[in-house]
Each structure stands twice: as C-alpha cells, then as structure tokens.
C-alpha cells in the first residue's frame, strides 16, 4: 500500500465522506486513488477557497447531528494551496475544526523553487492550529489521526497536512503496522482540561446567587459543545437573561422570554444596556472580542465576570475575570445546573429594567419592518428577513455572508432550530456564504438551507454556482442587491460625511447568470412580490436564486462605533455625523 492509500483509509476511518477540492500536479495521485477506492463523494469547488468553506459547512452543521463529521479540503501545491489560505484563516478565527490536505512538490526538489512550489507550511503556520509535513509514507496514517485529534480536541481549529508527491506515491515499508487503538500521539504539550475544578464552580455559584443583575453570555463554545439545552436550563433555573455572540445564535430559541438577542456592535439595545448595567457576566465559550466589548476600559465596569472557556489563553486576555473556569462548556453547565446550591431568584426589578430596554427601539423597528421601504422606495432587508422568518416559522438553516444583510439575518430571523446559523464571524470573510451553504446542505439534507448574500459578497464566490449545478444541491440562494458594499457604505454615512468612496457597485444580470447555470431565478422589487417568491422557493425542490432589490439607505441599528463604548450606541436615524470612525 502507498502513502496516498494510507491517507485515504485514515480519512475513511475518521468518518469522512465528502472531500472538497481541486486537483493539480502534486495532488493528482491522491485523486486517482480516491477514484479507484470509490468511498468518498468528491465535490469539486470552482476555486479552492470554495472548498475550504464547504468543508467548514460540513464541520459546523454536522456537529449537532448524530453523525458529526470533520470537513476535509484538498488542493494541489503552490497556487492551489495558496487559494486555501482565506478559508483556513477564517476557520482558525472561528475555531472550526477542519483538515486541509495539500500536495507538495517531491522531496528531491523541495527548496529549489520548483514548479508550483511554495512554502505551504510556512504560510499556514500562523493560521492553523497545527501543520504537518510527513516525509515518509509510513508516517502518513499516524499523522492524519493526530491531525484529527488536534483539530477536534479542546478549542477546535484547522490543521494542515502538506505531503510531498513522492511520499504520497511511496510504498509503506514491509513491516508497516498501524493500529488506531494503540495510537498515542506524542503531544506532551497538548493540555486539555474538560472537567471544571470544584473551587471556581463553587465561587461562581456564590456570585450567581448573590447577584442582582446578572447576564448570561452564550458564545460559540455553547454551540460547539451542544450545550444549548443546558444553558437554557441554567437561565430558566436562576432567572437570568441571555445575550448571544454572533456565533452563539441559535443555541437557544431566539424568542425565548429570557433571550436578549445578540450583543455587541450591532447587538440589540436590551442586550447592550443590560450588559452595561449588569453586576455579573456569566460567559460561556466566548472570547470578548472587540466587536462584542467596544472600548475595553468602559466595558461592564460594575460587573464581576465568570468566564467559562476551554482555551486558557482566552481567560483574562481582554477582560479581567473574577472567576475563571478553564473547562468544557457542556461539562461546566452540567455541573452548574445540577448543583443544589444554585438558587432561583426572581430578580423582578432587573427584568422590569430589561423590559424598559426592550422598548427603546421596538416601535421604530416595528414601523420600519411594517413599512418595508427605504428612502429610495426600495425594499428593506429587515422586512424581507422578517417575512422569511415568519414563512418558515424560524425553523430553517440560515447561512449569511458578511455585511449589512448578515446583521439583518442575525437580528430578524427567529431561530428555532438548534445550530441553524452558520456565519463567518471572526474573520468576516465576504463570499463565505454560498460555498458554506453547500457543505451545510450535504450534512443536513432534510432541512432547508438559505444562503443569504449581498451583491458584493455573492460576486466573490459565485463561481460555486457551478458546484450547485453539478451536484444538484438544493440551496435557496438569496441576494440582497442594494447596489453597494452596504456595510462599508453605512460607515461612510455615519463617519465619513456620506462620501461613498469605493462602495457603489454594478451587478451583472443575475437572471442571465442563473439561467447560464440552469438555476431558476426570481427578481423581487415590490413588497407584494416578497411572499410569493419565498413561497416558490419553499415549494421548489432544488436550488433557486431570489434577487431582492434593496434600498441602499437602510442601516442596521443600533450600532456601537468601532472603538466606542456602549454609551456611544447609535439608535436613531438620522444619524449624527461623527468623525474619527475607523475600521
């Protein structure tokens, strides 16, 4: 048996069923064996970046199913590998487990600037959880298993294997033996503390019992450890409101009475005000990134902080903790919920105060959504998302791209299904949605998947329509076409005196694009066309493109300007002209 066959057998053993990628000189031996073996469904992306997001979609969406899988993408050396970087960096930022396999030029010519040689390990090191370059066929299988272990254990992340072509083709040695059961990766420096220590848990419970104005933070770690139900149980038991990070969305039902919605830059008034006035933040699996905290020295000044987090380097990184619990979120919640010391306190004053916050923007938003049209008489994204939410009872899967439409989808879809929201968050990579939705659909075939993009982001990876066409993937593709890079335009409106530099954009005729790929298409320009178009997409079996013509003047509010504090939250249009906003 050869190295490449060992590689594929190891992937099979790890439960991999889909391989996303693109072939080329250095990786083609693997593709050849893959074809002969016939055990994987190979999905060719039209650009290697597409493959990385498809792989992410698999990892993210399947983790809550009975059959969790790790997404695998493959590319050839040099340019193929370099095209993986954006999606790998994105997975690294969002702690998504993923395996990337690249072919490398043969060991004999490495470091000679051979054709399509690049230092892939050198480039990937800072954006991967770990990188490997096996130099013997005998090493490959063991390395693949170690890679899966590292990618999925503790805080997850992407792992790269860069394998020279001759090593792929090499026969394993005669006395080669491998047993997964006996594999003990040599990782003396890889620590992982899933079980919470008793002392901080006790302290945390004391703080919770004592607090008058607590807020629970639901982060990506809650989704990653499938702990939504337990988080909800804790919130209900102790009567504590819950605010969500972008990645925490859909861990609990969005309209749960204790939900405050999303926190941070484009978070709800109720979430952000509650955080400002809180005396205790109980955060689960999140990292207090700047889009969540705003100006750090003004952040939640009167609050103690309990931080439950699997990655010790996140504790005390941005926000000083009162109690640190370095452990798995699920296990910690399990202990907290079951602890008889945890008392139920009605906290009526706190909930009354939060109800006041809920009212601050409620009327304005209700009116806007009902009106449905912006200054230029075109459709509002929030109205479309609200209708989509109503018509699907909030049951469907939403995969947004990056921009205003993403924040609209985060705020106005009423998430009911656990783990039904998959977004590029930490990196905010435009173009992520369409390929990610493909990966999601492959592992959640019985659920409806909506890919929602802006006109900008859609054009970044619309070549993946080819993949959708070829594999007949049933993704409902929504384009919110406002003729602008809307999110940047919003900043220009607010902080650059309305100078729209580099943001207006022409789109191609999406109807013709759709027909070129044989995908049905509808253009929606008026309010009365919204519901029938959505209904058609729901009823149709297979992909469809819905292009909504949206109003460029729409803004997503509230907004805390970058580098600002929660007191700087903008909640009203017309917006004040502020100087000095920087991205």
């Amino acid at each position: 048996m050869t190295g490449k066959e060992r590689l594929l057998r190891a992937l099979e053993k790890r439960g991999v069923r889909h391989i996303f990628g693109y072939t080329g000189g250095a990786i083609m031996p693997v593709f050849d064996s893959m074809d002969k073996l016939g055990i994987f469904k190979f999905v060719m992306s039209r650009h290697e970046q597409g493959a990385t997001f498809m792989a992410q979609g698999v990892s993210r969406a399947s983790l809550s199913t009975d059959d969790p899988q790790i997404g695998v993408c493959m590319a050839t050396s040099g340019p193929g590998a370099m095209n993986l970087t954006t999606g790998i960096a994105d997975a690294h930022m969002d702690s998504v487990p993923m395996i990337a396999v690249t072919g490398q030029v043969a060991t004999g010519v490495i470091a000679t600037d051979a054709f399509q040689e690049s230092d892939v390990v050198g480039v990937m090191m800072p954006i991967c959880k770990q990188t490997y370059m096996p130099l013997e066929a005998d090493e490959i299988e063991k390395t693949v298993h170690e890679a899966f272990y590292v990618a999925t254990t503790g805080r997850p992340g992407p792992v790269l294997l860069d394998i020279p072509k001759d090593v792929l083709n090499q026969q394993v040695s005669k006395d080669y033996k491998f047993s997964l059961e006996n594999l003990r990766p040599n990782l003396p420096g890889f620590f992982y503390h899933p079980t919470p220590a008793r002392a901080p848990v006790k302290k945390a419970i004391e703080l919770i019992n004592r607090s008058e104005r607590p807020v629970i933070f639901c982060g990506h770690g809650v989704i990653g450890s499938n702990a939504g139900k337990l988080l909800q149980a804790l919130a209900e038991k102790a009567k504590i409101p819950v605010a969500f990070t972008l990645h925490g969305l859909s861990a609990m039902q969005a309209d749960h009475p204790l939900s405050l919605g999303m926190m941070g830059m484009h978070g709800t008034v109720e979430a952000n005000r509650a955080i400002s006035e809180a005396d205790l933040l109980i955060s689960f699996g999140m990292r207090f990134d700047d889009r969540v905290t705003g100006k750090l020295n003004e952040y939640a000044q009167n609050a103690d902080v309990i931080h439950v987090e699997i990655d010790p380097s996140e504790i005390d990184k941005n926000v000083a903790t009162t109690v640190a619990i370095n452990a798995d979120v699920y296990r910690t919640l399990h202990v907290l919920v079951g602890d008889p010391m945890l008392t139920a306190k009605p906290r009526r004053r706190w909930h009354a105060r939060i109800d006041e916050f809920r009212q601050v923007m409620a009327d304005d938003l209700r009116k806007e959504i009902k009106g449905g049209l912006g200054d230029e008489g075109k459709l509002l994204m929030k109205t479309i998302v609200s209708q989509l939410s109503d018509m699907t009872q909030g049951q469907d899967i939403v995969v947004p791209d990056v921009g205003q439409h993403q924040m609209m989808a985060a705020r106005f879809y009423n998430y009911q299904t656990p783990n039904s929201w998959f977004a590029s968050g930490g990196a905010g990579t435009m173009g992520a949605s369409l390929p990610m939705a493909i990966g999601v659909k492959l592992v959640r075939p019985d659920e409806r998947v909506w890919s929602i993009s802006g006109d900008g982001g859609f054009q970044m990876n619309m070549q993946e329509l080819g993949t959708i066409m070829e594999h007949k993937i049933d993704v409902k593709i929504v384009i919110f076409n406002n003729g602008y890079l809307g999110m940047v335009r919003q900043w220009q409106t607010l902080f650059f005196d309305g100078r729209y530099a580099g943001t207006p954009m022409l789109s191609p005729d999406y109807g013709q694009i759709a027909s070129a790929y044989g995908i049905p298409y509808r253009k929606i320009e008026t309010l009365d066309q919204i519901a029938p178009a959505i209904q058609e997409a729901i009823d149709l079996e297979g992909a469809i493109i819905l292009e909504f013509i949206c109003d460029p003047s729409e803004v997503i509010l509230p907004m805390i300007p970058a580098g600002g504090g929660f007191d700087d939250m903008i909640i009203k249009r017309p917006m004040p002209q502020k100087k000095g906003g920087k991205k």
Partner: protein
Amino acid sequence: MKRRAILAYLLDHPGVLQKVSMLIRKKMYNVDTLTVCKSRKPGISRMTITLREDDEARVSQVIHQLEKFTEVISAKELDTDHSYWREAAIIKLEIDSTQLEALHSEYKFEILDHKNHDTHIIQIAGSTRKIDAFVAQLGEEHIIEISRTGVAALEK
C-alpha cells in the same frame, strides 16, 4: 520597563522556533534575548526568553500563548530574585596590554588569544549587567567584534 525571563520546555521539532518567533512578532513583545539548548531529556529543548514588559497580564499572555503550541510542554516566568541569569560574551578588542591588565583584575575574564601586541580575544561571563558594565568601561571604540550568547537562566 521591567525585565522578565520566561523558561519553556519544548519538543525539538522543526518549525517550533519559527512558531515562537512568529508569536513574538504577532503579539509585538519586546524580546531582548532568546536562547535554546538541549535539555536533560533527549528530544526536548530548553528555551529562555528575556523581554521587557511592565504589564503582568501581557506576560501571562506570552506564557498562555506559548503553552498553546502543542510542542510546548511547559512555560513559566522565572522570578528575578529566585533565579540566576547569566550570559557570556566573546570580544575581540584592540587595547594596550596595561589597560587590559587593569580591566582583567576588575572583571576576571579569560584571555583566549593575543593576536598581536594590542589585539586580544577575551571571554567574559556573568550577569547581563556585569557584561554591560564591562563593555561601557572598555569603550565601544576598543571593540572590534563582540558576540554575546543571550541569557541563560536557572532557578535557585
């Protein structure tokens, strides 16, 4: 700014040193010296990093970030009062013999070679401060070439 020393044990794997130096660049730490040598155990290296940092939180971040690498077995800060920090230097200098004698009685360095009547190669070891003081007293103009090892540190 306060000088700190961090001691780390790590697997002797290709790329680890690159990771550590990338971390230093990415997080913009003010690193003065970085030395790596074999440890008592085969396959495991010992690394000493000295840096300038007043902020305790940033120092513990360095340690956490180092420990995050799967190759790093452990990392910790060495307390200045409870550890020895030493470095060595080899210096080629041009100075007349009487001056050299005077310095020698004060600094106790070892003379490795007299290249000619006023060019010498010496070896000096001790605390960073001692070497700095020696270099200052000698005067830059007398130094032809200097090679310093960087700090090696050990707990008391």
